[in-house]
């Protein structure tokens, strides 16, 4: 994309990993505030319809929720192990760990799929039959509808983040499989000797660290979503 080869060689050779990390943290702030807005909405409607929200959350499948929480927490561990391994030059282990993280993310999404499709089957979705008409023909209250609105929107937006995270992790795997010294420009000339000895591309470490940060954020948001939606 760079039209000015000389300028951007200069940028790329002296990549500023510290700067990249600052930018990633700033981006994570934006993500926190994005979900922060949703948490405000949740707080408002929960205080308006406490009984309906409690009823709604009891009706959800907690076992699936707990399994998903465990899967996601474990995936945060594997991504950290991957970063540690890569920093120590154990590239193969690192790839395995990142691969496990992707698999865990996949399991999370498959669980989500079963959970959602079960509800769709019952007509429990915005505008669905089960939402507006109970079996006895009674109308659900506004509070219950709102609970499901938020349930779908919050877990849905989180799910989108999981998918994006999977994509990023797969992208890092791709870069880790590329031969580090290919094309001669990918490695910093001033990289430390340890990096060179380990045949390590410091740009991959930086990439994996930043994707790892993103992945932890996805995890942290779930840690708040899970009790809010499933437990209380």
């Amino acid at each position, binding site marked *: *994309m*760079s*039209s*000015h*080869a*000389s*300028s*951007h060689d*200069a*940028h790329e050779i002296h990549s*500023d990993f*510290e*700067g990249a990390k*600052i*930018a990633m943290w*700033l*981006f994570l*702030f*934006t*993500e*926190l*505030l*994005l*979900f*922060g*807005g*949703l948490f*405000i*909405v949740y707080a*408002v*409607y929960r205080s*308006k319809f406490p009984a309906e929200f409690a009823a709604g959350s009891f009706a959800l499948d907690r076992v699936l929720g707990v399994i998903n929480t465990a899967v996601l927490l474990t995936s945060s561990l594997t991504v950290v192990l991957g970063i540690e391994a890569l920093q120590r030059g154990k590239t193969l282990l690192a790839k395995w760990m990142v691969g496990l993280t992707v698999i865990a993310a996949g399991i999370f999404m498959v669980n989500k799929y079963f959970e959602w499709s079960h509800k769709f089957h019952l007509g429990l979705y*915005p*505008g669905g039959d089960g939402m507006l008409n109970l079996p006895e023909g009674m109308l659900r*209250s*506004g*509070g219950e*509808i*709102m609970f499901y*609105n*938020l349930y*779908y*929107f919050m877990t849905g*937006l989180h799910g989108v983040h999981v998918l994006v995270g999977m994509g990023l992790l797969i992208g890092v795997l791709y870069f880790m499989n590329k031969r580090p010294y290919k094309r001669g420009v990918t490695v910093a000339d001033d990289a430390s000797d340890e990096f060179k000895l380990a045949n390590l591309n410091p740009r991959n470490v930086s990439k994996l660290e930043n994707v790892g940060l993103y992945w932890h954020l996805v995890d942290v948001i779930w840690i708040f979503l899970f009790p809010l939606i499933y437990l209380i």
Partner: protein
Amino acid sequence: MASHAMTGASHREPNYLEYKGKHTGILAWILSTDHKRIGIMYLVVLTAFFLLGVTLGFFMRLEQLYLDKSVSLMTAATYNAIFTLHGVTMIFLVVVPGIPATLGNFMLPLMLGAKDVSFPRLNLLSWWLYVVGALIIFASLFSGGGLPDAGWTFYAPYSVRTATNIPLAVFGVFILGFSSILTGLNFVTTMHRMRAPGMSWFRMPLFCWSLYATGWIQVLATPILGITMLLVFAERLLNIGIFDPSLGGDPILYQHLFWIYSHPAVYIMILPGMGVISEILPTFSRRTIFGYKAITYSTLAIALAGSLVWGHHMFTTGQSWYANFVFSLLTFLVGIPTAIKVFNWVATLYKGSIRIEAPLLYAVGFIFLFSIGGFTGIMLGILNVDIHLHDTYFVVAHFHYVVFGGTMMALFAGIHYWWPKMTGKMYNKKWAISGWAVMFIGFNLLYFTMFIMGYEGMPRRYYGHLEQFHQAHRIATYGSWVLITGILMMVATLISSLRNGEPAADNPWGGSTLEWSIAGLPPLLNFDEIPEVTEDPYTYNPEPEVAHE
């Protein structure tokens, strides 16, 4: 600061306009990651949108010449669509990206003594997202159920019920939010990482400080707009009724979320403008800025306090008395750092060797207009006065004094100030000053009349008006013609300077910040050698050496 890095004229590198990269023609621009070219591209696109917004405003004013609507220009529905489009264009496409994207992109790395921003490719992505967001908004006009007519605020429940094509417009705003976030994130990182050696935080020029505070607001406030727009989007497409009362939702909640972003956004608009003014005044009065640190801290204080005042848009929604009280108090508090800045600017001019040039006149005009805008803002923050003035032309006038008289005048000031460094040409001074004078007169005719109309009860966004307001509406419309004449004079003067202007000197105003230390137009990498900074900015001492020894 000026003593360093005077690029030798002996081996001139090609400047950023002459530089030949991998691509040619238009691709050499739209694929360029050079912050200077990106800044110019923003400026070109933004000028087009600004002129579009001006045209829409022109037609709104023209419609108000007609008291008898049976013979007027347009239907009420068209009028609603036009003020919506005017607002959306001006706010999201012109004023919010405004100064940071254009002057900020061009000048920030130069003023910091850096070769580029931290993430040049991300910078280009921001520009692309900006263009794509704009295209999506314009696509919403010609598709779906018709022109969006919900006003630039997209208030629920109307925005979730109107048949017009709100979802696409809202999605465009969401994309623009991404562009804004990425620019802010890029600038903040750049200032953390790429200041020249010796440039401590408190040696940064004040324009950079203002971009720093703005960057943080962009990063922290824009996501709230993003989620709000997503919720409206979901409400329209997926039936998720967060804001629609018929689905159990609460429309007031929409207003809260919207203003949690959109009030801080007002400071995204104005802070960079204040930064530009803080650059221009010392240069043209040959004095160091009065109260550098006070201006810096007040910038940060405005960014902080301004994030906590959103409720003052909602005094008439029936929110709790305590909330009103707190929001009103906080609104008054924002006045303090703002006034600190105004006093510092005036004190900078005091006893200076003032040189009258177009940038200075724009800057002084800014202080005058912005002070009126700020003062009427305090009036609107008074609880009982707001009940009287809410949703009247008074609010419209206040907002235009702040955003047009403030941000846009500051943008014009900055363009006139940095034009020689951006284009290498000088514009015609007499025409530039006349353009400013005509604009200033037209501006006050148009918007001051709106203050009076609003105070007497003319509601905003109304298609028609009562006979008692007719005279004032006519004066305002005539004012709009004068204002537009001034704008066209300015644009014509600047554009004709590209062809006919004298070549600019390296430092025509005698500025002391780093961008002026570059000979001629900046080369691709800005500095042959990264300069080392040994002094505070704005050191305009007639006998610098003697004074220290």
